């Protein structure tokens, strides 16, 4: 099946956050569509977790060379989705076209996905007891539309298509920026980012120098995530070994009597 992908271009973005607003609006429209409230009610309710893409501002440096870096946080739709692996309620589905969907009705609010995510993406709402994250508007994708934030982006900083299309566009943009601006640009997520995540279905084009400020650490490694995966594998192996030992000793013990 053809995989889809998204692109976020940090250089083109004008930090207007129309994407964030539109995501909130689209989710409210979904609530109304699914009979979970009328238009007025869903618009008046404060549901910040329904803006699956949202800004986090960081500032580095000192005056006058200080610089802000606005991280646009959203799900990276990892190839190996650690969140899907860990979800005890099997609420996270990895679609054949690559999109990672957290089904709200199945979520039990345990936040194992948040523990598992190296990008700190899932957002928990205590009032509803559920965790939320971007699902790349899979319902729109399946209806032949692009995700809401892509439609919203007036700077064409957000781009959606097949993975081939998106990677081609991403590399073209990175090359173009390098040519005109003389700085190294990176396409984060095009290649495998770490063993835990694999490659990302949402790639980011940005100056290599800032990507770390942008919380896109080169390895996206969270030692604990890899360690936990290892523990769970090793643990069962050891259990198997000890179970074998017990059975062995049991068989050995059969017919044996204690000697005085």
């Amino acid at each position, binding site marked *: 099946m053809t995989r889809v992908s998204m692109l976020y271009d*940090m250089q083109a973005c*004008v930090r207007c956050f129309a994407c964030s607003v539109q995501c909130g609006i689209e989710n*409210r429209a979904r609530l109304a*569509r699914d009979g979970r409230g009328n238009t007025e009610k869903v618009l008046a309710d404060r549901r910040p977790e329904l803006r699956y893409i949202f800004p986090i501002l960081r*500032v580095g440096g000192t005056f*006058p060379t200080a610089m802000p870096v606005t991280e646009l946080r959203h799900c990276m739709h990892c190839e190996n989705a650690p969140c899907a692996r860990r979800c005890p309620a099997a609420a996270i589905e990895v679609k054949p076209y690559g999109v990672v969907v957290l089904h709200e009705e199945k979520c039990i609010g345990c936040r194992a996905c948040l523990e598992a995510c190296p990008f700190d993406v899932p957002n928990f709402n205590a009032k509803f007891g559920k965790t939320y994250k971007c699902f790349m508007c899979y319902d729109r994708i399946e*209806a032949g539309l692009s995700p809401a934030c892509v439609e*919203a*982006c007036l700077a064409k900083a957000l781009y959606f298509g097949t993975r081939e299309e998106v990677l081609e566009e991403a590399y073209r943009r990175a090359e173009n920026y390098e040519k005109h601006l003389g700085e190294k640009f990176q396409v984060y997520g095009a290649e495998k980012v770490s063993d835990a995540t694999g490659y990302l279905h949402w790639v980011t084009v940005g100056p290599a120098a800032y990507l770390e400020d942008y919380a896109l650490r080169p390895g996206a490694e969270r030692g604990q995530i890899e360690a936990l995966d290892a523990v769970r594998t090793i643990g069962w192996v050891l259990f198997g070994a000890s179970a074998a030992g017990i059975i062995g000793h049991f068989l050995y013990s059969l017919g044996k009597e204690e000697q005085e």
Partner: protein
Amino acid sequence: MEAKISRRKFLKLSGVAAFSPFIRLGDVVSPRTKAPTPTDFGVEKRVPLRCRMCAQQCPAIGIVKDGKLIKMEANPHLPYSGICGRSRSTPAAVYNPDRLKYPLLRVGKRGEGKFKRISWEEALDRIAKVLKKYRKEAPEKVVYLPRFTSAAGIDKPFWHLYGTPNIISYADTCHSAGHDWGLGGYFGRPISPGAVWMDYPNAKFGVLAMRNPGGGLCVYQFGTFFAEGKRNGLRLVSVDVRFPNESIEGAGHRWLPIRPGTDPAFHLALAHVIVKKKGYDEAYLIEKTNACMLIDPETLEPFKAVIEEKEEKKGDKTVKKRTMRYLVWDEAQGKAVFKSQASKPALLGEFEIEGKKVITAFEAISRALERYTPQWAEKITTVPAKEIEAIAEELIKNKPQVFVDTGWYSERYANSLRQFHAIGLVNTLLGCWEKKGGIGGIPKVKLHGVLPKVKKPKRIQITKYYQKKEGYPFIIPKAGRRFVFEALRTGKPYEPKVIFAMGQNFIGGSAGSVELIKLLDKVELIVCMTPFMDESCLYADIILPDTMFPERNEALHVKFKQSFPTVAMNMKAVEPPFEARPGDWVMVELAKRVLFSEEFEKYFGDFVRGGWEYGWRKQLEGLDEKYPGITLERLKKEGVWYGKQNYKIKKKTLTHEIEIFSLTFLETYKKFKEKGYPFAEYANPLPSWAPPFWWEEKKGQLAEDEFILTTGFSPLNSFTGGQTRNNPLLREIWDQIGLDRLWIHPERAQKLGIQDGDVVEVFPAHNPEIRATARVWITPLVHPDALFTYYGVGAGVFSQLKKFLVFLPEHGVNMNHFSKLHFAPLQGGHATQDVIIKIRRA
């Protein structure tokens, strides 16, 4: 231990347990999100709209389902289309519980905020009664203040018929006239932000000074053009009191912090370096401008120039065309001749003609620039001299695919006229006007009026009076709302008696709000029509609930920040709530009551009978040849029509060239110098520095607790309109990024013992009684002399507003509340930031 369990329950439970393997063990509830089906989209109505969340009217599409506006999308039929986050939050404004629902009549004192509900009948009758009275006595004393009015096409004819010339916009609180005439001098007519566009997509390098195309976001087309420029690898330098992250976050850009109000010095120094290095476009200056014009070095008068008058046919009218023919020094012939006769005009030089010393205009400009060195500028602006030189080099190297952004919101300090004059000079030296990658002219579309044309009444217009008689020659009469209050203060030319604000927040939007409200006692009737309560409504006698833009049909609109001519439609998408009614209906109802029945029939009859179908067809009548493809059907279906891209900027100068030496300025300069006028220097056609008011007051030195409070537009807020500042969906993001915060430099904060997140009291030094609170953000992204806050967040000084607007942030200041009722010299802009502000821990 015995468990107390009834036999019945036991049987029930065990029965369940026993049969459990046979109970269906799948999901009991169906999944909560389902994919939209074609029928979901089939029942959605898509209606063309023009967004009014800010004043720019970007074409958009409203998505309507079951009679409700659920989403906004960009109009896909435009080559540069898009709408911003505010526009996308429109549903949260349309269905906002704080919408004004009914006409209201004041019952307490003005400003108390006590109103009672009345019927539309009563409201209109009350207004009509007063209007009828003044129509007999002095209709000019009725002032109409429109702002992206829902009555476009209907209101102006009505008020002109009524007899008042005072239809006044609020551009004096934005770009009128420092920007408009500062740049306008070069073109012989006002150059507003709606007159020129930067060719961001094709430019190589640009300077943004007091301009943030990402923050002061106008998506169609400046915003989308800007984004394309960024995508193409445009490099930018931003000279700003704060780091404008909307524009220059990313690689390849630089921020140069500048002391508030000192921008003219920066641009003058840029011009100085360009001239010194001979980096200007010599051929351009000689050919396209009056740089070679010979002038008297003392009086600056053009030497022996003649003015020719010709009659020209323009359509079916005959107009008189005046042209100045001037002398230049032809190096080929070694003598002074008219420019058309010269083959090699001298750009620089001093010459003697018949015993008289003359110089070229450019020579005068060069000499005037001599003292404006980068070192001089550094002392005033705090921008390092070598940075200024580097920018000039970059501009010279890449011209003409460069620009110094001509800006937008200019009226912040007294010296804005000189600031924009200097910006115009730099762009002229670089020869980037009308060039690809430089600066183009915004083309105009002319449609017919909805109603038969009404001539403007010959009575004295307030702003025209101040322009002609009170030393503000550069006022643009159609923009100058604060002069209405100056008229109240001085009684000249007369005291306005009725203020009808159709969407304008004249109190919250004008510098000197607190001084202004004291003058309102003299006004007999104040009417405000708007969808949300604001500062002006608090002082109104009658409040009329306006519709929001998706709730009405409107006249076709042609004024966009466009590089190609555009016409766009706004059609009614949903019903208005409660008793909100559109402005055009109100105008018709007033017309019915106030005008004579013959007048009414003549001007309004057809519109009343035919409605907007009639109105739209009237606007488009016979124009399909001039604008091929412009049909009502297309506009209803696709929402827009557009033409070819245009770079040409129209000139109305006497020389019909770009006047790098402005004769318009010279005329005023001469007159004012003669009169011994204190601000005559402001009209100098040669480059000249003028400081802001605060600099004069403080000799350039602010005390430890003194700041200049600066503001800028956020792409998530717009002015003081409740549609954005009282919007729950936008408020969610504001909280996330601290949009309502007051930015302060770390060193300054430390000296005052202020910590990040503290709530501080903000007040002007000249009147400590005017106070408001703000929450502080300590950041190195702001100049030490400045405080910065996004414009219009919070109730500021008018805390009674919080009662009516529940989604306002708890703290937040509005610069205008603190400012003075003063005016920028010669042009009347509101110079809102030009006062000293103090803060202290709350």
